[in-house]
């Protein structure tokens, strides 16, 4: 009985010590806090860039699909099919290579001149990556809108761009809002590979602690838990959003 209590007590004290060592001593928890901040910064920046890119690429692709066949030959048609080729190439390359490789190419090859701004390089790399996935989400959103909506817009006298802007895009975005929010959640986790370029994100924060305290269990568990809680929180939010949107459809 006494021995058992002793064992528990030892274990508990050990735990307290490693905890203190990893998070309290030298304010090491601040390494995680700072990392979390950067994780959010990169994720948010990349999401915004990804949506911008995604909308543009989706517009090019669906405009081409919808109109190129019926277009009269001329400069407009040439430009549109060129843009469409570029967009397809972008989608193929980005979706056909690992994001970590893209990030390293961005950091070590393309943006060497601004390599000290790791956050910016990461935002650009993940933004370009995310844009390819967002583009396909938004394109499916545009394609899912009843063609009658497009015709109604055109029959009032709106040109192609105005019809897209006032009538098609708002409905398409609303339809794919949950999918876009999911893309944000995926990015939160995906950006963890940015410690490969030495960016101090949440994962790197845990890594730094591990390398200083020579204990792996506690800091890595903490990192995993923080990701999990954040992802669960946002997943919950997306579910609520989805329900709201569905109700407003009626």
């Amino acid at each position, binding site marked *: 009985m006494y021995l058992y209590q002793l064992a528990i007590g030892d274990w508990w004290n050990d735990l307290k010590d490693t905890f203190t060592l990893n998070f309290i001593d030298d304010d090491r928890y601040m390494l995680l806090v700072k990392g979390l901040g950067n994780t959010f910064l990169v994720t948010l920046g990349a999401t915004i860039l990804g949506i911008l890119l995604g909308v543009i690429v989706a517009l090019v692709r669906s405009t081409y699909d919808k109109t190129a066949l019926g277009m009269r030959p001329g400069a407009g048609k040439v430009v549109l099919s060129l843009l469409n080729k570029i967009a397809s190439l972008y989608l193929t390359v980005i979706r056909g290579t690992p994001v970590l490789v893209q990030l390293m190419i961005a950091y070590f090859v393309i943006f060497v001149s601004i390599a000290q701004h790791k956050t910016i390089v990461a935002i650009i790399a993940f933004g370009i990556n995310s844009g390819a996935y967002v583009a396909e989400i938004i394109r499916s959103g545009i394609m899912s809108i009843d063609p009658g909506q497009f015709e*109604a817009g055109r029959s009032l006298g709106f040109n192609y761009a105005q019809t897209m802007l006032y009538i098609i895009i708002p409905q398409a975005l609303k339809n794919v809002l949950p999918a876009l929010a999911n893309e944000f959640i995926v990015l939160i986790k995906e950006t963890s590979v940015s410690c490969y370029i030495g960016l101090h994100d949440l994962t790197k924060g845990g890594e730094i602690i591990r390398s200083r305290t020579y204990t792996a269990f506690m800091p890595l568990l903490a990192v995993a838990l923080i990701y999990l809680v954040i992802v669960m929180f946002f997943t919950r939010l997306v579910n609520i959003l989805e329900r709201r949107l569905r109700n407003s459809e009626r």
Partner: protein
Amino acid sequence: MSADPIISVNKLKKYYNRGAIKALDGVSLDISKGEVVVIIGPSGSGKSTLLRSLNLLEIPTSGSILFEGNDITSRGTDINKLRQKMGMVFQHFNLFPHLTIMDNMTLGPRKLLGIPRAEAEENARRLLAKVALEDRAGAYPSQLSGGQKQRIAIVRALAMKPDVLLFDEPTSALDPEMVGEVLDVMKDLAREGMTMVVVTHEMGFAREVGHRIIFMDEGRKIAEGTPEEIFEHTENERLKTFLAKVL
């Protein structure tokens, strides 16, 4: 009715699949100001194609369409300006579900005609009162019945102050008890002198409101005349067969 036609269609053809399908096979037709022209005919006869060619939702393969004196099939025409003057009402209403009724009605006038919001909304309210829906201005399309949606679609087109209104089977998607309320609105418009081209299977409406009936079959205009000529005194066999089926 003035002598000068507002729309003049000449030998209009529309082919699909490199001529394998002749949706329109040389249709000629004049429409005068204030006239109500009703197009009837069996399914697949080219009624919709003809109507949708008038505002270039379909680009004809050959032939010409003069609207207010200008050939709209020539490359120089501003299709968007043209469409502002030709309202269209669809079988499936095609209201914008993300906008309120008020915004559905004011989007075009505000963005295309540059009418200030207050004035556009005042116009819209007046039109809503005309179709007895002034209390639904703030509702969304999904909150309306089919008949209400179609009445809104009609006044949305009217809000652009068009010279012509095109209707493609405006009552075909409605429950029977809602057909009347939409036809009543269209009758009022006809009485007020609106130029209308109506594709419909409502023979009662065609007879009562139409000034001229066009019967189409296989992409051609087979018969044309006053309701009396078409419904009472026709000698045309195809028309007789068609009427025997629908009347």
